């Protein structure tokens, strides 16, 4: 089955327009549109154009290398992969329950990452669209332009991100690609001096995060009909929730709901994910298309990430963020919570939750404890799941008796949102582009819709590709240093 606007009935004679690369997102992606002579849109696709092959080349590596290796999938959310792999490897080393210190240091690291990633995405990457307009001057539509026009907003964004990065540095050892979490626990806890340094600024971070929620709310208020309609579509949703239904970004059971909010499954033990989820492959993207097994590929696709989590949980276990959640869900009769641009609002609510969560953990003495590691009976299979900034992340490994990884399956957050992002940009194409002369500003509408999902396209490129063509790579001196893979999958 193909979806409306996925594949043109007669591509011959249609004009191709490409947005290449999609900018102000993480990773490599492009959008192609096929248009007829009257500028009617016939096909819209988001392509993930790169590949890595992590699942294959980590085979044979020792399991204890994996948490450090796989975070190189992504420099924006390395902590997600670091922790999902650690949770999987906990099972390999038989650490059924890590120590309270290890659990809380990992949670602190994760909150630090949610804070920095959400701040980066909102302030550095998306705020120019929202503050200046989707079709504003391309020369100003970036963080430098924001720094000139709204220096206070830009400065807060930079300092919120800095704080999150400092939390990561103190728990993981480095701001990007740290080493703090290991199979069975962590290798460091927080020193009192580090705790004091983080406590000093945490209340400011909470206040600024609240302001950020209000900023998004004001943007909605100013332009409500447009914000709610932009790229809107109906979808199922998927997220992890705690046993009592609370938002829990570090651990929980799987909950899926349909577009009307009806629960499809709840508190599913995530190690059985393959009973509930399947993936499809389409020839035009390296990113796979997951769906809920019970509903099938046509009806079973879903969205993940801040919007799915804020709407999907029963409550947020920190008071300020929960109040904002209730406000968001009730706003305009619940319509804002179904909007694609509602992702930004939900994301800022989560940023507030992360800031509050950091504060609570900094007041917990376990974070300076010295019981760091646990071990138990060795196992051959480990599955780790976590709510990364962009959504549900699955790491699944098999390890042999020589401690080598023999099989790996990674389903990253952005992959879950693949069909949802394609639906959003097709809806934007119908709403604003169809029949119009395309301008840079109109094309940016497509990118604005993609940015709502905060896609991590480098995470999403963990697979390899091979094409039926041959091309030579020639170096600066004219020598052939490589040739492209030739021959397709005949």
């Amino acid at each position, binding site marked *: 089955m193909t979806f409306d606007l996925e594949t043109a009935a007669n591509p011959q004679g249609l004009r191709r327009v490409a947005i290449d690369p999609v*900018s*102000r997102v993480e*990773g490599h992606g*492009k959008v192609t549109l096929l248009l007829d002579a009257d500028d009617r849109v016939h096909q819209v696709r988001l*392509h993930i154009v*790169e*590949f*890595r*092959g992590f*699942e*294959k*080349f980590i085979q044979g590596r020792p399991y204890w290398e994996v948490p450090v290796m796989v975070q*190189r999938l*992504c*420099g*924006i959310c*390395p902590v997600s992969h670091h922790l999902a792999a650690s949770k999987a490897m906990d099972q390999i080393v038989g650490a059924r329950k890590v120590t309270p210190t290890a659990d809380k240091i990992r949670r602190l690291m994760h909150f630090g990452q949610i804070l920095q990633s959400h701040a*980066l995405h909102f302030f*550095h990457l998306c705020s120019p669209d929202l503050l200046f307009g989707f079709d504003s001057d*391309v020369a100003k*539509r*970036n963080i*430098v332009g924001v*720094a000139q026009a709204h*220096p206070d907003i*830009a400065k807060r964004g930079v300092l919120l*991100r*800095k704080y999150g990065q400092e939390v990561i540095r103190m728990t993981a050892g480095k*701001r*990007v*690609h740290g080493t703090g979490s290991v199979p069975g626990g962590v290798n460091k806890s927080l020193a009192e001096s580090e705790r004091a340094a983080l406590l000093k600024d945490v209340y400011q971070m909470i206040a600024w995060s609240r302001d950020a929620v209000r900023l998004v709310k004001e943007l909605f208020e100013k332009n409500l009909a447009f914000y709610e309609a932009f790229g809107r579509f109906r979808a199922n949703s998927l997220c992890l929730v705690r046993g009592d239904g609370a938002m829990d970004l570090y651990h929980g059971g799987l909950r899926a709901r349909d577009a009307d909010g009806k629960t499809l499954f709840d508190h599913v033990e995530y190690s059985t*994910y*393959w009973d509930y989820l399947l*993936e499809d*492959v389409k*020839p*035009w*993207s*390296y990113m796979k298309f997951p769906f809920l097994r019970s509903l099938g*590929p046509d009806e079973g696709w879903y969205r993940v990430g801040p919007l799915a989590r804020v709407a999907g949980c029963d409550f947020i276990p920190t008071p300020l963020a929960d109040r904002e959640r209730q406000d968001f869900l009730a706003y305009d009769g619940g319509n804002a919570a179904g909007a694609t641009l509602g992702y930004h609002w939900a994301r800022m609510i989560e940023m507030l939750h992360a800031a509050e969560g950091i504060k609570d953990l900094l007041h917990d003495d376990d974070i300076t404890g010295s019981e760091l590691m646990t071990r138990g009976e060795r196992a051959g299979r480990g599955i780790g799941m976590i709510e990364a900034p962009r959504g549900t992340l699955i790491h699944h490994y098999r390890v042999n008796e020589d401690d080598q990884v023999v099989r790996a399956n990674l*389903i990253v957050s952005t992959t879950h949102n693949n069909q949802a992002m394609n639906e959003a940009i097709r809806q934007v194409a119908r709403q604003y582009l169809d029949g119009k002369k395309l301008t840079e500003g109109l094309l*940016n509408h497509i990118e604005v819709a993609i940015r709502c999902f905060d896609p991590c396209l*480098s995470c999403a490129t*963990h*697979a*390899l*590709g*091979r*094409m039926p063509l041959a*091309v030579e*790579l020639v*170096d*600066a001196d004219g020598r052939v*240093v*490589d*040739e*492209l*893979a030739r021959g*397709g*999958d005949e």
Partner: protein
Amino acid sequence: MVETKPRKLRIATTSLAGCFGCHMSFLDIDERLFDLVELVEFDRSPITDIKHCGRCDVGIIEGGVCNAENVHVLREFRVNCKILIAIGACALNGGLPAQRNHLDLRDCLQEVYATEASLSSGGIPNDPELPLPLDKVHPLHEVVKIDYFLPGCPPSGDAIWRFVNDLLAGRTPRLPHELMHYD
């Protein structure tokens, strides 16, 4: 006497077969970003909407070369940038993505797209819109001349700040021992 402000240097940045971690480290200069934009302006970069590199003083590239599009972008940078800097492990030696260099591409594809247990349908993506993958991942200097190499996975924000400041001041960049590292 009229004081003339020196023109801003123009910088382009991109990530090829990398993870964006070096760009994150660039942003780890934190509030010094506001000092930097007094001296430089950004051309093509993941933080702007400029899609092609124009004439620039400095180009900064993270990531190695893994497909035809990477080669194309790298050459566009070389043609347009007076100074080209390779930043991070992947740009310098291929890095982690180059771990696939000892494997057969077909096996990898088969494994990922055709044999996963959770897949409902197989098939290796082969649309012409997808750039051709190289069968090996290459460091940048195997394809174009590189003027400076900044190691690290990623180099720290402080190292990048020091490096860029030396360049802006017209000095040959030199990193003190504590800022030079490869992890």
